[in-house]
């Protein structure tokens, strides 16, 4: 069976890869492109550890095929920092100890970034609902939610 040739853009970089029809976007990112920041937790769309932004929408990369990336833009955790400078959310997660084991963290960061791009001033309830598809078994969520709210406030302050 011939592999599928896919031309896409990942974190702003034009990228080509070959994949099998059944390979998920997560499989391709991790196994073909060695972008291992996106994690596989459940593989069935329940845990959010594989969250990426596909064509401007937050999705689980385990529930998209690699072939579907053709002609699309994909944003992953690897594209979040600006060189050596963390994204403000990454910085705030570190400062607020909003992670313990870290497996869920890339997914939370991508999901939170997608929220703040749409809504720079979310309420706590809005943050909790937006992140309901990201599971964390360590933190109890509270530090994550606080980090996102504090980061949003900081980012608004910088823009004022």
């Amino acid at each position, binding site marked *: 069976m011939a592999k599928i040739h896919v031309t896409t853009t990942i974190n702003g970089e034009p990228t080509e890869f070959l994949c099998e*029809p059944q390979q998920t976007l997560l499989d391709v990112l991790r196994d073909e492109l060695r972008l291992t920041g996106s994690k596989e937790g459940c593989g069935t*769309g329940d845990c959010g550890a594989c969250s990426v932004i596909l064509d401007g929408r937050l999705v689980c990369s385990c529930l998209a095929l690699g072939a*579907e990336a053709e002609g699309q833009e994909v944003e992953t955790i690897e594209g979040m920092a600006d060189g050596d400078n963390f994204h403000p959310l990454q910085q705030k997660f570190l400062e607020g100890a909003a992670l313990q084991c870290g497996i869920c963290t890339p997914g939370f960061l991508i999901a939170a970034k997608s929220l703040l791009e749409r809504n720079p001033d979310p309420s706590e309830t809005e943050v909790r*609902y937006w992140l309901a598809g990201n599971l964390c078994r360590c933190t109890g969520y509270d530090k994550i939610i606080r980090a996102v709210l504090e980061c949003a406030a900081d980012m608004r302050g910088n823009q004022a």
Partner: protein
Amino acid sequence: MNALTYESPDSVDEAVKLLAAADGNAKLLAGGTDLLVQLRMGMITPSLIIDVKKISETTVVKEVNGGYRVGAAVSGAVLGEHEGMKSAWPGVVEALELIGSTQIQGRASMGGNLCNGSPAADAVPAMIAADAICTIAGPNGRREARVEDIVIGPGVTSLETGEMVVDFLFPARPARSGDAYLRFIPRTEMDIAVVGAGVSLTLDEAGVCTAARLALGAVAATQLVVEDGAAALIGSTLDDAAMAKLDAAARAACRPIDDKRGTIEYRTKVAGVLARRATKIAQQRAEG
């Protein structure tokens, strides 16, 4: 196991040709939130996956004679940003948006939710209450069908081999119309309906209900159209007596199963409660 192939045609005609050539071994991919899980679990072993998201008809929302035609693969995230559909059919939009997380919303579609055939599918009771019409394309051309006629059993649809759902028509609404969908789950988010209830109704200038439809989910092998419930509302001002009749009609229609989500007795009771509450929300929306 057959080798799997992936195709992403850019027209319905091309998709239908691919479906016909695959002789029943193809699966259509819209958002993939059910399909890719089933593929991974080995529950399905198709020889061909046809991604319909490169087709304009299945991925756009269009205004048509005051109503809306919604592509079968339009995601919840896209529909939830469509001001026209939110204003005309808020219950339908809310029902689709109840499915899964933000990530799932980025992909999940009404076409997928319907054709997956789950008795607990959240979008479906609201679509049935709205009396939405599907456009179906197949080897013999196109036909239309009411949404209520598509699911005929758990995971089973009335679509013939080689047919696909292209879009859904939500007709223009008379003045003083409203709809609503409510589901019960034991927590606030991220769960599967124990019961769902969709209501659509129209009032006259005096507040008397002139048209109504009630559909229930997760209380039988398929979604149920409860005609006795609608009849209880039509001709009334949605007063307490009409609400009591509606509650009784909804309970009488239920044929649920006992499972980990709820007992027969519990589901039946909740169906009546949700039918009443959804009716009251639809009434407030109709009154504007």
